[in-house]
Every structure is written in C-alpha cells, then in structure tokens.
C-alpha cells in the first residue's frame, strides 16, 4: 500500500477522471491537479457546466441522438434536408460526419450493431423507430453509414430488409471506409469522399 498524499475528495476526483477516455491514471492526476490549482477559473465553471449538462442531457426521441433538447438540435434545424437520413451506429459517428461537414441531412442513431455474441438484438437498437420514421413518409433516401465490420454490415442488411416495400432509396457508403475501420476514427476527407461516392444497397 502506498501512502496517501491527498484527501478523499481529490482522490475520488482523480479516480473519476481516470475513467474518461484518453485519460489514464497519470494524466488524470495531472488534470486533477490543474483543476484544483485553477479552482476559480476552471473547477468552478466546470462544475456548473457539468451540473447543467446532467440536468438537461437527454436522448432525442426522433433520432436517438444525445443533446440537451428533445427533439435535438439537428432534428429541429430547418435548414437540413428532411428527406435524407444518415443512419449511424453511434453518436460519435454522427459527430464525425458533422465535423466532415459533407452532408446537410438528418440522422438516425442506432445505438450499436446487431451482435448475438454480445447479446445485442434488433429490439436493443433504434431500428423500430427508424422504420416508423420512414413509414411516416417524407424520406427519400437513407444512407447506411455503418462501419465495414461484420456486425455493421449485418445490421445494414437487416435494416434494408425491414424497410423493404416502403419505397425509400437505400444507399451505403462506398469503399473508402476500410474493413474494420470505425467511422469515428476516419479523417474528414475520407469521410466526405465516402459519402459522395455512396452506392445503392
């Protein structure tokens, strides 16, 4: 057992920060130290910002996105093309596509992929809500921007099957998303190229 050097409040702060992606125990300690040193300029405002986020964050009942309003900012943006929906696995993918700025469309966030081995079935994903959304009309094109993994492609096939007969054009990203590549990690140029060169599924 190493000797304790900080009180339990700071110890707890370090432990929680270490759970943030990109921060290990080492950088969590550095971040914590920085925060407590900049108590007024940083720790205080951060605490308020986090509290506000905690109070307001919710899942959009239309698209599955995470935002502070329901419907979310994207779903209520009048400048976006309502007739095109980009289907993504995760909010991180939505953010990646938005950073690439390639499309002015709406989204649908599945919340994962079909994976029997992980116990994830159709009912665990936002597939039903997608089918309902399309069935309500007004959607011309659905772009399946799922990863080129086995799970991603299985999910894409399943969705295509579920939408059969609803008269929507379904496309998927053309090559450019490497096999096993996760959308979130692709650079923006590759992403917009993939979106532009999408093919009919």
């Amino acid at each position: 057992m190493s000797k304790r050097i900080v009180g339990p409040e700071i110890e707890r702060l370090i432990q929680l920060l270490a759970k943030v992606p990109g921060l290990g125990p080492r950088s969590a300690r550095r971040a914590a130290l920085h925060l407590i040193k900049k108590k007024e300029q940083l720790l205080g405002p951060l605490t308020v910002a986090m509290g506000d986020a905690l109070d307001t964050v919710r899942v959009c009942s239309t698209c599955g996105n995470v935002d502070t309003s329901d419907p979310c900012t994207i779903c209520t943006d009048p400048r976006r093309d309502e007739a095109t929906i980009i289907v993504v696995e995760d909010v991180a993918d939505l953010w990646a596509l938005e950073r690439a700025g390639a499309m002015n469309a709406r989204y649908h966030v599945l919340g994962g992929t079909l994976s029997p081995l992980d116990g994830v079935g159709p009912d665990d994903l936002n597939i039903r809500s997608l089918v309902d959304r399309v069935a309500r009309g007004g959607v011309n094109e659905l772009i399946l921007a799922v990863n080129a993994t086995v799970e991603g492609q299985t999910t894409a096939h399943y969705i295509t099957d579920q939408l059969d007969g609803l008269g929507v054009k379904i496309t998927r990203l053309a090559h450019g998303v490497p096999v096993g590549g996760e959308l979130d990690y692709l650079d923006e140029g590759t992403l917009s190229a993939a979106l532009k060169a999408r093919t009919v599924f």
Partner: protein
Amino acid sequence: MPGDPTNRGAPPPVNIGRLKLTDFRNYLSLAVDLSPGAVVLTGDNGAGKTNLLEAVSLLSPGRGLRRAAYAEIARDGAKGGFVVHAHVEGAQGEADIGTGAGTADPDAEGSLRKVRINGAPARSADEMLEWLRVMWLTPAMDGLFTGPAADRRRFLDRLVLTIDPAHGRRALDYEKAMRGRNRLLADGSRNDGWFDAIETQMAETGAAIAAARFEMVRLLKAMIERTPEEGPFPRADLALSGVLEAGLASGAAIDAEEDFRRRLAEGRERDRAAGRTLEGPHRSDLLVRHRPKDMPAELCSTGEQKALLVGLVLSHARLTGELSGMAPILLLDEIAAHFDHRRRAALFGILDDLGCQVFMTGTERELFSAIEGRAQFLTVSAGAVSAG
C-alpha cells in the same frame, strides 16, 4: 491474387539480419546475427531450437508454429510478456519489426499481440506480410494427412495467407458471423430477418475464403507440374472438399455464394438441432494424393508422407516467391531426421535454388554435413546461441 506464376527466376530473398528475444520461453535475452540462406541450429534436446523457430514464426500473423497461448510463451518467472524483434532486409528495403504479448497487464486484451513496424504501431499483424512471409514445417505436422481435417484446413489457410495477406481478415470475419449464427441457434431465435442478415455475411465472406483457397490450390498444382517428375520429393495431387469449394470447381463464385446462402437458410432447423452450423468453409478439407504411388496420402508410409509434405511446402515456397516477389523464410524443424543422406542433399540443393533464408534444426551437426561451408551453423544450448 495476382496471375499465374511465370518462369522469371528467384525473387529477391528476404532475410532476418538480426533477431532479438526477450523473455521468450527459455530465452531470458538473446541477440543473434543471422546470415542469408541456410541457418542450421543444432543442440541437445530442450536446448531451445524449436523455441527460436517459434519466435520467427510470430513474425507472421497468427499464434505461431505451436499455436500456443501468449502467456505460455512468456518465460516462466518473467514479470512482463515476451518480445521478439527482427531486423529484416528485403526487397522493399529494411524494416524493424517488433512483436510482443502475454503481459500480466489486467486491462490488456489477453489474446492480442502488439506489432510495431519501424517504430510505429501496426494496424494489424497482417502488416508484417508486407515485409516478409514465413512458412514452417514441424514434427507436430507429421500426422497432418492422417489427423483431423481441422489441422489440414488450418495448414491450407496458412498456405493461402502466406500468399494472400487478406485471407486472415476474411477468416476472422467469417468466424465472427458464424459464431453469431451459432449463438442465435443456441438461443432458439426465430428472427428470420436476423438470420438472413447474418447468413448473407457468412455467404459473402465464406465465398471469398473458398475462392482464395481454390485459387491457391490451382496455382500450387500448376507449380507442382513444373517440378521434375523424378525429383527427390514425390509430386502431390491436390483437391478441395467442401460445399463452397465444390461449387467453385463447377461454376462461378457468385453462384457458389448464392447457393451457400440458400443452404444455410434451408439448414436452420438441422443446425438448430445440432446446436451449430454444420456446413460451410469451416468444414472443408484439403485432399492430398501421392501421385507416383497413386495413393491417398494418409495410406502412405511415414517417410513417404513426410516427403510428400516437404515437396508441397517447397513448391509453395516457390509459388510464394513468384507471386509476392519475396522469397519466404522457411522454418524446417527437425527436417533432416526422416531422410537418408541422398534425400537430404537433394533438399539442401532445392533450398539453395529457392534462395530462401531457411532455419533448420537437428540434434546432430552431421545431418547437415552436406552444407558445411555453405550455411551458418549455430549451436543452441540452454537458451543461448553461439557460432559454430
């Protein structure tokens, strides 16, 4: 896969110039300079000869020639995992390849092996294939023709992977889809849409696997035809068995894929009863016949089987060289044991001609007397390697 092999002479060899091991089986720490061409490792039983070959085999994707768990490879008593480092000199210049695994690190995914090439982390172990191709023959493979089909299938896929680096990815994708289907079967799922989606993936990746196997066997057969009829190693006749492979032999790949998908859909009830997928490229087999004797390999004598296998691996090495532009590195563990003097000399001659860096082991140096002066001789003793 590129086109048919052409007679354009030996491709540039690829050599490991320097090999370093850390906490690898009985090696605490080893650094050894290696020569191109034949490298002969002699030493007593248990000295560490096969271990050294195993280390080199980990410079290709997969779990190496023993298919051991990484934790088992890490030296007993070592704190961390093992490391293999090689300086490779090849057609595309030089590369430093490092690989390691088996750390006790709790959140490291235990089965994952890290690979670094020229100081940068590799996206996958497949990247090593851009620098070198490694193929091996060990005494454990002596029963290949008489043993279970799974061993031959693994051998077959290794032959494919050495030529076609994309094969590993295909196999993993198929495996993942199939395990998903097996889970659905076990869970008693009746969601046909979900089955359809998974089976489509299985058919797509499965057809790609079968096509790659089929192509490799076709090219290897052509290569075997080019070996002299009266050579020291008998010619093999090769065939593939399997639902998809059979379809490929008679028709187009796309038909085979569609056909396999249909069979999977129709076989759901049968597979549900069995608790697993009963048909597919995961059940295929490589059928080998001894041509001069016109006999299935499994009915041949021990020595005949070994000669057949060596002939196969040598033809494959030549094919790999011609198609990849890299003469493969060969690991021939206890290769000389089964052969008489005449056949040994012939083997050394062929290896010379192939231009491969080839690691050979044996307990007695006399077995390699025919290449005294033409090979690097190393003595292995209790996890240490010395010249001579």
